[in-house]
């Protein structure tokens, strides 16, 4: 540490870190544009200028850029010195020459870093009399708007998009005062992380397009801390709401999970909350008639009725919270409860938990993987199944560059210097996947293999680590690299549907532990609460549950937030639901219409994640609380409330839940779930000054007027009995738990840049600690378990089906978000050229799977192994049979484009 002095204030800073970062870590105000905590310094904007003095005697000092100046013991600086302050005002004045004065109509207004820095720097009166430049904007696709006139040429966008996220299609064009940031031509921004431009750009150039279409000022958005429902990474998000409509998703900083960035599934995938096909009424129907709306009480009575007897099966869901699943489990009894995965996936998810618990490797946090200096990816197409991780893996391979820069004594935050010196040197990432992935471009070694061969290869690597097997082979080289790495990482997961692949990953990790290193092992699950639902348990597999219904062993079924057609053999689901409809009741509680709701007898509308609170467990086993952002309109209600009410009405003593916290309390009494109590502040928590935390901002406008067109009396503010948040602007942010705030906002800092005010240090944990609690830790001190290759037979006719995931389209809910629909593609079957030839099919022809009664367009990719077919998971293909399956060319197939063209 070094003691430095800034305007007379003496404080400790890390030796060698840059002065800007050191000042911000002290929560001092110092303006900047081009520096970004994750992107480092380049010294382009010149906004962070300060005066540095040589020694005690030096009175004049010289102007330096804080972001480019390493701090050293005894260094003396001034932010306030007139020379520095005047220069910073000048920088703003220069930037304003061409900046349009369109704040009133600019989407960034009210959360604009340029506005903030302008006010902070004190430039007020325009003295430049020249003409302003105007630019033609580009159509960048359904996610991102483009308004180039607002650009201040800070280079952040291309540095994020190109340098950090590996995108190729956004560049800096031109020179001098005619810099242009865009694509060579109009077109969809290709990167899966393009949405971050909205927050990375300090002005309103890159805007959230869906948000623009239904816009509100930041100060009019209500919010509460939430968790992205898009996948198992569990990124922290800030949904913004107004008038009961979810408007947009912003990143919510988490020092261990998502840092400053989200993926585009997360950012743009939440509009399903407002979708047309939301389930908003209770319904009942007789036979094949239309659903008739019924009162909530009537629906509740049905639920209560089912709670009474044992003649029911309850099917939960990995997209519902632990608490919602638990409530259903309580209601129907553990032995009648099924967590809602396909039977195959249940096994895979349990395997994750087993491997984690076994201590085969240290389970890293998602951001921690950025430190890895050698990575082995086994089977998982991370960019499509757990997208945010791919961005972190992209940073991990930069460790070699950082190492080289360190050797050349270039500060690691000096981004251009590091990149220029290291010339893109990469640490080794080995990728063994079914098809090419978005990480192949940074991989040292890539192989495309079917899952069973990936597993075999993985086991061979494990053997080589243990010293058995040829060093010359690829396995030997990979083993050697992992062994010599300081922080090796193995990533695998359930994505390719083969547990043997994960077992091989565990074997490699175990072998590395045996060999004395400390490997990190991260296994990805597919859905937001896959691990939560797994940990909760339940006595019933899905196939078994469906068979019970089909066979009449149970007559009634309660399905919670689950489209069974995506999870089990559709013909089995049909048979089960048909039998149940005949014999009893099919009560489906969901937030959106699915094939399953279409086959129900009773419907109950439940709240979407933004409309309720609950706990999700992410892929590292971290339980995280999401809070209610806004109240859904009755009768839409949280599932745990429906279920709890029913339990109480049925006289169940174990379900006398007044409040959410009681549900948590009861649930936490289950083994392994004890930590649930500590996950996040309960309803009795209070923020600063003992006050509730307001969901609305202190500048929310029109409080007394916004409903006046309906009723001139001001509405009574609802009281939130379940959380510490209020539904008004009263209260105070902050308090002991740093993450318990509805918005980041500090005096003078209206944009998301203000987050540093709430961090221990720049890029560190939020004050009060990183939120969420790991529900389990790997066994310590036990000998590393061994995982041997189990024998599988793979004989027979037809194709082995391999699930393929897509960031836009494979996740059920985000796939219903209109911007994601626009961005996503149609279902596909991927075959090797030889196999396609054998079926007499060409690219684009329909390929039919009789067993699934579905067809999709063929994509030929020679990376797909012969005898295997990749099926893109989504609306068309959900559940896939395990054995070999016959595929054929479908002469009647019409692609969706063709169908549209015909109409």
């Amino acid at each position: 540490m070094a003691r430095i002095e800034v305007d007379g204030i003496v404080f400790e800073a890390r030796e060698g870190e840059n002065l800007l970062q050191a000042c911000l870590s002290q929560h001092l105000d110092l303006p900047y544009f081009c520096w970004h905590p994750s992107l480092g310094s380049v010294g382009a904007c010149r906004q962070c200028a300060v005066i540095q003095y040589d020694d005690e005697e030096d009175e004049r000092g010289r102007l330096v850029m804080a972001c480019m100046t390493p701090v050293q013991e005894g260094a003396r600086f001034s932010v306030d010195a007139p020379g520095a302050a005047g220069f910073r005002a000048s920088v703003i004045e220069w930037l304003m020459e061409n900046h349009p004065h369109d704040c009133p109509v600019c989407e960034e207004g009210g959360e604009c870093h340029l506005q903030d820095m302008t006010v902070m720097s004190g430039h007020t009166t325009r003295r430049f009399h020249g003409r302003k430049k105007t630019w033609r904007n580009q159509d960048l696709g359904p996610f991102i708007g483009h308004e180039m006139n607002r650009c201040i040429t800070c280079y952040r966008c291309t540095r994020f998009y190109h340098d950090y996220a590996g995108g190729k299609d956004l560049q800096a064009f031109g020179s001098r005062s005619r810099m242009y940031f865009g694509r060579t031509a109009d077109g969809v921004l290709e990167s899966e992380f393009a949405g971050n431009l909205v927050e990375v750009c300090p002005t309103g150039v890159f805007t959230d397009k869906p948000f623009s279409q239904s816009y509100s000022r930041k100060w009019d958005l209500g919010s509460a801390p939430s968790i992205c429902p898009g996948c198992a990474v569990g990124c922290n998000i800030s949904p913004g709401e107004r008038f009961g409509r979810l408007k947009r998703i912003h990143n919510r900083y988490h020092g261990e999970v998502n840092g400053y960035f989200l993926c585009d599934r997360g950012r743009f995938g939440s509009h399903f909350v407002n979708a047309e096909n939301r389930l908003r009424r209770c319904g009942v129907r007789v036979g094949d008639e239309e659903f008739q709306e019924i009162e909530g009480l009537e629906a509740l009575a049905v639920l209560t009725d089912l709670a009474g007897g044992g003649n029911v099966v309850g099917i939960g869901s990995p997209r519902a919270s632990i608490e919602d699943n638990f409530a259903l489990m309580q209601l129907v009894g553990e032995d009648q409860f099924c967590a809602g995965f396909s039977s195959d996936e249940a096994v895979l998810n349990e395997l994750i938990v087993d491997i984690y618990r076994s201590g085969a490797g240290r389970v890293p946090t998602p951001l921690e993987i950025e430190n890895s200096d050698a990575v082995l990816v086994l089977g998982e197409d991370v960019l499509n199944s757990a997208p945010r991780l791919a961005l972190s893996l992209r940073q991990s391979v930069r460790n070699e560059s950082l190492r080289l820069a360190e050797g050349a004594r270039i500060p690691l935050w000096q981004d251009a210097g590091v990149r220029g010196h290291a010339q893109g040197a990469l640490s080794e990432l080995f990728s063994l996947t079914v098809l090419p992935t978005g990480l192949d471009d940074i991989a040292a070694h890539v192989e495309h293999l079917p899952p069973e061969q990936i597993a075999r290869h993985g086991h061979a690597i494990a053997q080589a680590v243990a010293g058995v097997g040829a060093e010359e082979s690829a396995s030997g080289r990979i083993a050697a690299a992992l062994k010599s790495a300081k922080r090796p990482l193995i990533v695998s997961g359930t994505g390719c549907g083969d547990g043997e692949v994960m077992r091989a990953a565990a074997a490699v990790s175990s072998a590395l532990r045996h060999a004395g290193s400390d490997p990190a092992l991260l296994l990805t699950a597919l859905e937001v609460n896959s691990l939560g639902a797994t940990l909760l348990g339940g006595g019933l597999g899905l196939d078994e549950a469906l068979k019970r219904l089909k066979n009449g062993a149970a007559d009634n079924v309660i399905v919670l937030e689950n489209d069974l057609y995506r999870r089990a053999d559709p013909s089995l689901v049909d048979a089960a639901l048909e039998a149940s409809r005949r014999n009893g009741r099919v009560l489906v509680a969901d937030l959106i219409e699915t094939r399953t709701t279409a086959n129900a007898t009773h419907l109950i509308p439940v709240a979407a994640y933004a409309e309720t609170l609950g706990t999700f467990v992410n892929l590292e086993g971290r339980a995280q609380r999401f809070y209610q952002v806004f109240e859904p309109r009755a009768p839409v209600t949280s599932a745990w409330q429906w279920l709890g009410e029913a339990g109480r009405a049925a006289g169940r003593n174990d379900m006398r839940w007044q409040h959410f916290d009681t549900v948590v309390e009861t649930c936490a009494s289950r083994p392994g779930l004890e930590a649930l109590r500590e996950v996040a502040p309960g309803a009795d928590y209070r923020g600063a000054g003992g006050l509730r935390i307001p969901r609305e901002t202190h500048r929310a406008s029109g409080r007394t007027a916004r409903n006046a067109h309906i009723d001139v009396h001001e509405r009574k503010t609802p009281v939130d009995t379940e959380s510490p948040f209020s539904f008004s602007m009263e209260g105070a942010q902050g308090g002991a738990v740093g993450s318990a705030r509805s918005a980041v906002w500090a005096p003078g800092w209206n944009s998301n840049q203000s987050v540093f005010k709430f961090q221990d240090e720049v890029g560190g944990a939020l004050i009060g600690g990183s939120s969420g609690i790991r529900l389990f830790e790997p066994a310590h001190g036990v000998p590393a378990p061994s995982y041997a290759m189990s024998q599988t037979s793979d004989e027979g006719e037809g194709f082995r089906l391999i699930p393929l995931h897509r960031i836009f389209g494979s996740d059920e809910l985000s796939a219903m978000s209109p911007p994601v629909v626009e961005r996503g593609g149609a279902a596909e079957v991927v075959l090797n050229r030889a196999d396609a030839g054998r079926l007499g099919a060409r690219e684009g022809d329909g390929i039919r799977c009789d067993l699934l009664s579905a067809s999709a367009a063929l994509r030929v990719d020679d990376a797909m192994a012969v005898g295997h077919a990749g099926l893109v998971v989504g609306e068309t293909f959900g559940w896939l049979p395990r054995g070999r399956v016959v595929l054929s060319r479908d002469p009647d197939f019409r692609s969706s484009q063709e169908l549209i063209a015909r109409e």
Partner: protein
Amino acid sequence: MSERPLTERIDAAGGFVDGGRYEEMGGYVAARQAVTSMTPQEVCGLVKDANLRGRGGAGFPTGVKWGFVPDVPGRKYLVCNADEMEPGTFKDRYLMENDPHLLVEGMIIAAYAIGADRAYVFLRGEYHESYRALTAAIGEAHANGCLGESVFGTTYALELAVHRSGGRYICGEETALLNALEGKRAQPRTKPPFPPASGAWGRPTIVNNVETLCNVPAIIRRGAEWYQSLGLGEDSGTKIYGVSGRVKRPGLWELPMGTPIREIIEQHAGGMCDGYRLRGLLPGGASTDFLVEEHLDLAMEYGAIQAAGSRMGTGTMILMDDHVCPVDMARNLQHFFAQESCGFCTPCREGLPWVEQLLLDIEEGRGTAEDLELLDHNAAFIGAPGNTFCLHATGAIEPLMSALKYFREDFEAHIREHGCPYRSGPGSAAEADDGAN
């Protein structure tokens, strides 16, 4: 007449020196000597002792710079900066067009001295004649065993190639040059790391000006003491001085380092044209501060010019006579510098166009006293070294700052009289420019 190691062959040949003539006149003797009988350290030492200073503008001691190259295994680069886009400067072009082998030989010695096995000439895009001359000379040198796998039959290998610039002034700034050479945007790099430690493709790299490198063969052949003795004052060697403006014989001459300005203008350039009086001069290209009458007896050498508040720069001066409007000249220069800004940092990218706009307003009679204040304000904040990312903007402001100091009268007269006293008829100042923008 004193000795002229840079141009004597050109004069003897009466123009272009082909390969044969070059060898006849002692060509490649120095390179052969260095590569076959000296250690790299000896070569560096000799150049250091000769006190050769960089002719690209900054005057940094060349031998010292070479000494910064770390003794690490792996590839190293020598890059010759032949971008020469400084307005008023055409000395490198003269050397390359007329005596390309001299540069090739200088580069062989320099590359050997720093242990480089790859060398590039980064050539101004418009220098077609230089390109032809250099590529032919490199071909001949290859054929004669002066370049390639085995230089002069030794184990030393060197490849030399010419890269033609896409054409931006900033490509002359050595780190922007390296980015351009690597195929990246021509924006300067942060220092540190300095190129000798981490330059082209992240490897140790020395960037030297054409004229600098052309001095090297003679130093090897004739020794450090001889070279030092060529200079009249503090600095060693000869310098190619140039004069442009309304003199009787504009051109360039190789003269002893430290020749007084007055001698260069009056003797060599033949003095001012009849009817024209000298008002000021930019001693080392467009990016140096004005000097005036009182400075004419100064020696053209690094220290003396610096002490007078300007810079030797490229040593090729631009003269301003009494028929030229200083405001318009400043405007013309700022038009160039604003246009050539790389666009990376704010003060240069946005500040220079504003400065140009203010100058245009003043020149065309729209200027106010406030505009003059704004000009001072902008010049102070843009021009201070360290305020901008690289020295482009610093250089841009040097002539303006000094014009505001020496010719303030003229600026005030424009504002007072709502127009340019030098202009008889109406017409836009900007139209007088080449129209490029």
